[in-house]
């Protein structure tokens, strides 16, 4: 059966991209959306398809009112927060098939401690050592001697707040320890406002390498692995600056990345699949939706950094660009539990680059970034062949007004990185602000950055292969001279 009335939950560029893709379905669905702000892009699609835009909190109450108004055959949840809030649980209660997971499954994203513990319990490869803390003093005591660590909020908090402290040069430890302490306090402060999970601070062993995302669509029984995509978490060019939601992503040529081997990709898919099975076994609930694994090629090989219980943003843009098939049919198959029987394929030779444009001030000074005007020359961009997805903006007096987060995401598809890179950079020149500075990362998709990634990956590949050949692929041995030997066994 083809469901013709779809309700999308979410109001960002990712949901705009999903809505756009659904609107291209041969089944011509009527698309409605549950949003907190009136995303002008989503609104236009909703209007054109004869759907409705329901403005409310992205929570069970909002869902109920939206369901009452549009009576959807299918609910699609874009972001993570509505999942944490129980929107999918509510949809199930109302008997509406839902692409997007309930709270119990979204815990794999919501709680970093849960995700790590799950991987250790089921001995899934790609693990790293971690500790979770609620008590700030315990955390402080631990980090002072923990060496190189990543200190994260234990709960997913919009991609902000992770900091990595390299402690490779012992003479620098005083300054670095002070910074670690400040991060523990900052995280603890931020986490005090959430009461939906136990731990507040997660401290992980820091790993270095090249990052990539592997997303799979699951129907609860089988998965479809989407192409590997590289997101770029630093807010500034050349991988400088704070972590943010992601400033752009690349994929290609075809369903691959220039710096990742097929073996490494398959190993990562396998890790994701095993995690998904473990999660279903643990909760007894079927996973219907997208599971995204943020990976890093490290000295252990493919290593899981964190999981997303939904499409990545902006990775969703790249993934959808590579998919040849009808997205609605695919999501239908997922909610019906018949993913294994559908045919799908990816563009063989295409390259896709997505980039976010944000008002200066994003991500840590949103007061500065809010309320700025943006103009977009859509005709100019269309002529160049890019797609534009609106994010954290509303329409006001013929202008777009920023709300403080990533305002616009642009997608370009081409046959080579060079062509696609030039195209997207030209398109972005058509996005301007008359009263503020906009930022985007020029380096994403450039030859220089891709060459650097290839070089970094080759370097790390040599190391992890050596370690695997020498029986150290899944083991780390720490020895304090004259003291104890600690063996971390990752098998």
């Amino acid at each position, binding site marked *: 059966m083809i469901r013709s009335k779809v309700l999308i939950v979410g109001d960002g560029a990712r949901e705009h991209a999903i809505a756009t893709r659904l609107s291209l379905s041969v089944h011509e669905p009527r698309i409605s959306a549950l949003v907190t702000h009136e995303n002008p892009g989503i609104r236009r699609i909703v209007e054109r398809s004869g759907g409705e835009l329901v403005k409310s909190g992205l929570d069970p109450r909002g869902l109920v009112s939206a369901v009452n108004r549009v009576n959807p055959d299918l609910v699609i949840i874009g972001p993570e927060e509505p999942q944490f809030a129980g929107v999918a649980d509510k949809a199930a209660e109302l008997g509406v098939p839902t692409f997007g997971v309930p709270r119990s499954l979204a815990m794999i994203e919501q709680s970093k401690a849960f995700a790590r513990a799950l991987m250790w319990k089921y001995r899934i490869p790609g693990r790293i050592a971690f500790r979770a803390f609620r008590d700030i003093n315990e955390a402080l005591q631990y980090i002072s001697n923990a060496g190189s660590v990543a200190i994260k909020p234990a709960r997913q908090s919009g991609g902000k707040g992770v900091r990595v402290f390299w402690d490779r040069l012992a003479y*620098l430890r005083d*300054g670095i320890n002070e910074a670690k302490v400040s991060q523990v306090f900052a995280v603890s402060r931020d986490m005090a406002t959430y009461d939906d999970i136990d731990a507040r601070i997660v401290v992980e062993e820091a790993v270095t390498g090249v990052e990539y995302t592997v997303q799979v669509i699951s129907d609860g029984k089988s998965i479809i692995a989407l192409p590997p995509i590289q997101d770029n978490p630093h807010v500034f060019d050349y991988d400088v600056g704070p972590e943010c939601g992601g400033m752009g992503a690349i994929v290609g040529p075809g369903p691959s990345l220039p710096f990742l081997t097929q073996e490494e990709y398959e190993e990562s898919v396998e890790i994701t699949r095993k995690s998904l099975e473990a999660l279903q076994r643990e909760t007894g609930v079927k996973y219907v939706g997208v599971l995204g694994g943020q990976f890093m090629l490290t000295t252990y090989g493919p290593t899981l950094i964190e999981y997303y219980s939904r499409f990545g943003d902006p990775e969703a843009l790249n993934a959808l660009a590579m998919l040849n098939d009808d997205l609605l049919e695919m999501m239908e198959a997922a909610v019906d539990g018949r993913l294994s029987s559908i045919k799908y394929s990816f563009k063989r030779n295409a390259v896709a680059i997505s980039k976010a444009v944000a008002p200066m001030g994003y991500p840590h000074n949103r007061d500065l970034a809010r309320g700025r005007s943006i103009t977009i020359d859509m005709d100019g961009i269309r002529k160049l062949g890019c797609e534009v997805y609106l994010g954290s903006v509303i329409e006001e007096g013929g202008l777009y007004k920023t709300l403080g987060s990533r305002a616009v995401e642009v997608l370009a598809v081409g046959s080579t990185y060079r062509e696609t890179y030039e195209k997207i950079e030209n398109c972005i020149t058509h996005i301007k602000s008359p009263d503020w500075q906009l930022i985007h990362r020029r380096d994403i998709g450039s030859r220089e950055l891709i060459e650097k990634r290839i070089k970094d990956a080759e370097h790390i590949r040599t190391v992890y292969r050596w370690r695997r050949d020498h029986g150290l692929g899944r083991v780390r041995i720490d020895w304090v001279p004259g003291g104890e030997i600690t063996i971390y066994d990752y098998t």
Partner: protein
Amino acid sequence: MGVSGFVGVISFHDGWDVSKMLRYALPVLRHRGNDTAWAALLSNDNKFVIQEVKEDGNIPSGWAGLLCLYTNNASRGLVKCGNTDIAYCIEGIVVKPMELCRLVNGDGEALAYTSLVALTSGGELIAYRPITGLRNLVLGAYGFDLAMISNESSTINALGGEVRLFIEPGSIVRASKLNLSVSKIAGNARSKLCVMEFIYLSRPDSEVDGHPVYEFRRALARRLALRLAKWVDVDVVIGMPETGIIYGIKAAETLRKPFEYALLNIERRRSALKDDLLDKVSSVHLKLSPVISAIRGRRVLLVDDSLLTGISIKEASQALRHRAGAREVHVAIASPRIIRSCPYGIDMPPDNQLLANAFSNYADAQRVLEVDSLTWLSLDDLYATANEAGIDGDHLCTYCLRGDKHELDL
């Protein structure tokens, strides 16, 4: 004018005192300046705290800061540009602070011979590489937390960071908590790398625009040795501390002769950058403690990176022959003859104090230095080395090495 070593660090998150890192930039950059460093730190309320720093001295705390060492006191300072205070360190030809203001404000002429790192009281870290490319500049980062800019890439590594970008000539970098931009200033940018950076100025663990300095020196030493092999026969090879050691080791490898670590530093100082003659001789004597047992009765090849006045070499040849009893002292220099003082900002004695200039006749130069033979690298060998390293000869500034009267196209 003058050489300096500088680094600027800015933090993107609260909780950093960058002075704790900057103090380790001091030993890394010492070879580019005199004994005293200058540091300017920005406190949490964006006030500058400025201090001269001796070795192991305390650096004031701050969330962002600059540190530099220099041969010329005019290479650093604090200037008021409108309402903004700007602390700066420069390298190369000294320019008026007002010109730096204009550069920082984006309405100045593109400087040709001067690089800059500056910190503003508005919390912006700004750096500039001259349009000629003669001075170097590199951007690095530490995790999600720090951005660092220096004129030696090894500083970035010593401060725990990773090199992210070699800044192109004529480019200005601006980093703040809000943004990072690298943009070209209008002007005819050329890429002329200073050959002296490769020969002796940079640390061997640095890279210049991605070209490893060590590899360049290794290749120079090899070519020098191939030249020597034709007419000089020796028993042992010795390197002149500090920068001549690599050349000595690598030349010995090519010659298939033993390298002896037979001249030892008493205290590490850079002699070439000293102005005062007695200071210079003191510095030379502090790196010339001979290991007599390794030298006595032997035919010695002494290798150094460069030869300006010849004072170091003469002192060394006498230490080797008179004190340590070398039978023969041959000298090989891993650079071509330096015959003109650098007009673009590298400290060198004036033309009439350059030995290669004063004694254009080899035999005279050998007699002055009291050496059995004196061999310089040829200009052709230098260019061949550059080519090997992937640097086009046109992209190398060799003004100080060239006898023709033409000024370089800078």
